[in-house]
């Protein structure tokens, strides 16, 4: 089963760290990703640039609206993600619990549905009928 681990972090905290502290955290994240790689569970990962660079797009009243800034204005912001392939949710949760992000932010674990968008929803919908 594939799961995505979404890292929600307080962006404003990073610039307040000393250079040594930043180097320490980078090392901790590197070690975490190496551990996932060694275990053969890490499929991909990525860091996102700060939310001030985000753009949101929507259509309202037939007009496309393009706005600066992220969708949600919460205390923590989505800062990165890891996609892992593990046997079950328990394994995904135990990897999430080892994430450095859980020490200073929040890790959200979501199962992934690969392939065509909405396929799974359609199946559930048909089963329910």
């Amino acid at each position, binding site marked *: 089963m594939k799961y995505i681990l979404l890292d929600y972090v307080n962006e404003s905290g990073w610039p307040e760290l000393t250079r040594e502290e930043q180097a320490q955290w980078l090392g901790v994240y590197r070690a975490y990703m190496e551990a996932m790689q060694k275990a053969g569970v890490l499929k991909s990962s*990525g*860091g*996102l640039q700060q939310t001030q660079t985000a753009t949101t797009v*929507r*259509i309202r009243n037939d007009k496309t609206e393009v706005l600066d800034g992220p969708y949600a204005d919460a205390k923590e912001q989505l800062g990165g993600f890891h996609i892992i392939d593990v046997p079950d949710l328990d394994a995904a*949760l135990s990897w*999430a*619990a080892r994430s450095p992000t859980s020490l200073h932010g929040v890790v959200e674990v979501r199962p992934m549905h690969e392939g065509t968008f909405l396929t799974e929803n359609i199946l559930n919908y048909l089963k329910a009928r």
Partner: protein
Amino acid sequence: MEYMLLLHVDESGWPKLSKAEQEQGMAAYRAYTEALKQAGVYKSGSQLGPSSSAKTIRLAGGGQQVLDGPYADAKEQVGGYYLIETPDLESAVSWAARCPTVGHGVVEVRQLVR
């Protein structure tokens, strides 16, 4: 440049659609994914399980706490994503504007750190 398109959707809307409308919705996403692939900008993408199946992990009172549900309790939920590679933000935004999600939800465009 790599960009992540985060699809924020109102999950509760889907079950209210007729079967024909749901098939239309699926076809629109299939066509969009196909267009991304044909343009050579598609890297990966996936629908996510419903936010009700999400768990969040955080440190609380010296121990790690696992809670049911997504991090943010907003009107729309992250329902899926696309990773695309385009020359600049402008082209990423123009791809986002073609995503079926913009008709019923919000697409958030975020550049990846490389």
